[in-house]
Structures are given as structure tokens and as C-alpha cells.
């Protein structure tokens, strides 16, 4: 396609949007709403993933050893475990140390400590730190198979639940989004149809003098893309303002809650909304023009 043609096409798309500006505004608004909902889902998902990742990175594995096991065997297993892959750090604790730690954590439970003092029901064990969250399960399995190990505890269940929540969110997000997307498509399709109708004389002349179908289509596709892009920009602006506000509120009222960063969130929402907007715009124009040019 020549430079002349590109200039022509841009001019035509702009002219058409201007002439149909009310309908175009309506389309942009619906695209904005659909993309805003999409962006909210993205924001929530990014945050859930953020919390999950935080928890995973903090997780330590606690390995408890059976009572009456020889101290030497306990230390030997620790030495061996240090050579296993994925282990960043491993700390041995005795049941006396475990009792001390408990006392510090719950200083008011006097009767409990008197009981522990008489016959300590706690276990010796290790605190194990993984290099990466994905290593945790394997390491836990390794320890669990050792004969001297009583049991292994890690925060896997919380992480698992969060992961499941993220999946549910993702799928329900897609379903809602698909419904909104269809509705939005119809509105853009109608806008493009109106634009086609407004330009039917031009189109007739173009066909008579031998303009190619793509040449006739491009202004409308550009128009659809522009509507999609404008919707995306508006949705992103709304999300940026909204999330900024949420972050400020959270900093005051939920200071310990780990919120995903502004830039990370905006990056994600922008990618989703821009791609979503462009795809919807292009799809709508193609559908609106389908059957239209074939003789």
C-alpha cells in the first residue's frame, strides 16, 4: 500500500468518526465499560497472585522428628539434607527451644508452660527454607519419607486455596467478559454499519472505478480500531485513578496487607485493555463489512 493511500485512509476514518460522533461516543463508552470491568478483574487477579507469591516466598517448612531419636541421627539427617537441591537454609531446634519459642509467642499461657515444664510434649525438628516456592512440595516429600521424621508442616494449604481462588476469579472473569464483549461488539458493529450507510455513495463510486475491497474496508477497520483504542485508554485512565485511590486507602487502613504495586497493576491492565479494545474493534468492523462487498 502506498503512502498516498495511507494518508487517504486515515483521513477517511477520521472524517467518518467525526460525522458519526454521537454514535462513536456511545460505542467508545460501552467499550470503556466493558474494558473497565475487564481491568477490575485484572487488578483483583494481580493482587491475589501477589499475595500468593508473598506467602509462598515466606513459607518455611517445619519438620518434626519422632520422640526418643538419637541426637546424632538428627544431626546426621540435617547434614544430609543440606546436600539436597532447593534448600536455602536449615536450622535445627530442640524441643526445649521449641518450648522457649512458644513461651515468647504466648507469654500469658502460664498453666500451659507448667505442663510443658513437667514433661515436654513437643518435638525436636528443623526449620527449612526453600530456595523457590516451587521447591517446597518436593522438599517436604523428601523429609516425610525419612524414617526418623514424625511429620512435616508447611503453609501449602493456604497457598493452594489462594491459587484455587485465583483460578475461579480468572474463569468467572472470562465469562462475564465474554458476555460484555458480545454486547459491546453489537454496538460497535452498528456504529460501523451506520458509517457504511453514511458512505454508501462513496462506496458505490469506489467499486465502480475499481477500488479494491481492502481499500474500501480499511477506513472502517481503522474506525473500529480507533473506537477500541479510545475505549481502552478511557478504561485505563479510570483504573489508574481508582487503583491509586485504593492504594492510598489501603496504606491507611490495612497497612500490613500486601498490595500489588501501582505500576505492575497498570502494566497488566493496559496490556489486557489495549489488546481487548483492538480485537473488539477489528472484529466488529470485519463482521459489519462481511457480505457487504462481495458481488
Amino acid at each position, binding site marked *: *500500500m*502506498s503512502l*498516498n*493511500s495511507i494518508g*487517504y485512509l486515515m483521513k477517511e476514518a477520521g472524517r467518518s468518526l467525526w460525522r458519526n460522533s454521537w454514535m462513536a461516543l456511545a460505542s467508545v463508552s460501552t467499550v470503556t465499560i466493558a474494558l473497565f470491568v475487564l481491568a477490575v478483574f485484572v487488578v483483583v487477579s494481580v493482587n491475589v497472585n501477589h499475595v500468593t507469591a508473598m506467602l509462598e516466598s515466606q513459607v518455611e517448612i517445619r519438620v518434626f522428628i519422632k520422640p526418643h531419636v538419637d541426637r546424632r541421627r538428627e544431626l546426621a539427617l540435617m547434614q544430609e539434607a543440606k546436600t539436597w537441591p532447593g534448600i536455602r537454609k536449615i536450622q535445627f531446634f530442640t524441643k526445649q527451644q521449641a518450648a522457649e519459642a512458644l513461651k515468647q509467642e504466648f507469654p500469658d499461657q502460664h498453666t500451659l508452660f507448667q505442663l510443658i515444664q513437667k514433661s515436654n510434649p513437643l518435638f525436636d525438628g528443623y526449620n527449612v527454607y526453600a530456595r523457590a516456592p516451587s521447591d517446597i512440595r518436593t522438599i517436604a516429600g523428601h523429609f516425610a519419607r525419612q524414617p526418623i521424621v514424625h511429620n512435616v508442616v508447611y503453609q501449602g494449604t493456604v497457598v493452594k486455596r489462594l491459587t484455587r481462588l485465583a483460578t475461579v476469579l480468572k474463569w468467572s472473569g472470562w465469562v462475564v467478559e465474554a458476555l460484555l464483549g458480545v454486547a459491546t461488539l453489537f454496538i460497535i458493529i452498528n456504529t460501523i454499519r451506520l458509517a457504511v450507510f453514511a458512505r454508501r*455513495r*462513496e462506496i*458505490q*463510486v*469506489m*467499486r*465502480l*472505478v*475499481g*477500488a*479494491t*475491497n481492502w*481499500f*474500501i474496508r480499511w477506513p472502517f477497520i481503522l474506525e473500529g480500531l480507533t473506537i477500541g483504542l479510545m475505549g481502552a485508554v478511557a478504561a485505563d485512565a479510570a483504573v489508574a485513578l481508582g487503583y491509586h485511590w485504593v492504594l492510598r486507602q489501603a496504606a491507611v487502613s490495612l497497612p500490613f496487607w500486601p498490595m500489588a504495586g501501582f505500576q505492575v497493576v497498570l502494566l497488566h491492565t493496559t496490556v489486557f485493555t489495549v489488546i481487548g479494545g483492538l480485537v473488539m474493534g477489528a472484529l466488529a468492523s470485519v463482521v459489519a463489512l462481511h457480505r457487504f*462487498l*462481495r*458481488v
Partner: protein
Amino acid sequence: MIRLEGVTKRYPNGHQGLVNISMTVHRGEFVFLVGPSGAGKSTLIRLLYGEERPTSGEIVIDQFRLNGMTWRQLPRLRRQLGIVFQDGKLLPTRTVFQNVAFAMEVVGASRKDIHKRVPQVLELVGLARRRDHYPEELSGGEQQRLGIARALVNHPSYILADEPTGNLDPETAAGIMKLFQEINRRGATVVMATHAKDLVNQMQKRVVVIEHGSIVRDDAKGVYAYES
């Protein structure tokens, strides 16, 4: 060369447009299609520019075989044709210059070529001084000239005209006919459906008479005559 071989056109609603038409138009010819209303003249013109497909028979224009033509190939055929209508099909929101330039823009011509070529054609059809007027500010004859200018601007080998003088008074019509003669003299093949009896008779060109969808006469230096 335009060649029709046993062409029949039946419309989906059952109307018979053309029945078993065969004819050949050579390069440089000037052919009138005459006949009563509803005879099939417009149908024939529409078949030639690919707006309608024949129900049976074969249509060939130069290297283009219209029967199996896809919608992708059609633009290439159309660039060889200049099509003129009774109603001109002008764009009311564009000036005379822009109307003609539009036909060049949409086939990808450069600004430079457009600014060189459009004034030439406007000069040829006698609209050079009207270039910045809008179609509604023109007389009927001028509007028709504008339609012709647009048909000519991309150097077509063939001019197809469907009753181009249908709306015009005899004097204006004569001027338009002279213009077509001039275009033909410059090398374009002209096929024109018309009712302009006196003009056809004056021109001494080939006349093809169509009635009820069939060719009933085809005379080299014919006259406008048919039983109505």
C-alpha cells in the same frame, strides 16, 4: 475486445433480462444499444461491468473472462472501464475537482498525478472553470460532464454509458454526444444505451437493437428503429 457468446440473464424473481445474446465489440468502436424500455439494455451494461453475472453464456473483455471472475479480480476489470450513468452518481459533499480526484485517490494515485490529470480531464469535458463548485450548483448537462470526467480520469479502454443523456434537453444532449464522439476519437471504445433517436441517427455509428432481451438488428451504420 468485448465478446458475448450465447448470454442469457434471468433474474432471481423470474424476469428475463437477456435471452441468448451473442455479439462482439472491437477496440475503437462506438456502439449504440437501443430498444424499448425493459428490453434489457441496462442488464447488458451491468453484465459488462460485472455487477450482474450471466445465468448462462460467456462474456469476455480483453483478458478478463467475466463468468468465473471472483470479487478479488473485479477491481482490475473495472479499472479498464469508465462507467457513466443517467443520474451521474456524483458525491454531493465534494467539489467538481474532488469528485474527479476521488476516482484517482481510491485506486492509489499519487497527489502529483492527481493534480496533473484532473485539470486535463476537466478541460476536456469543459468544466475547467467549475472546478470548485459543488454538483448541486451545476446544470444537468454539467453534472453529466462531471460524471464523464470521473469515468475518463483513469484512462479506461472502454466507456460504458447507460442513458447518459436521458435527463437532458436536446441541445445539451447533443453537446454530450459530441463529447463521447471526441472521447471515442481519442481511442476509447464506447458502448452506450440510449433513447436519443435523432442523435443516434445523426452519428452514423453501429446500432444494436434489443427487444425482449434479444438482438433483433445489428447495423454498422444503423439508424434508431424498432417496432414498439
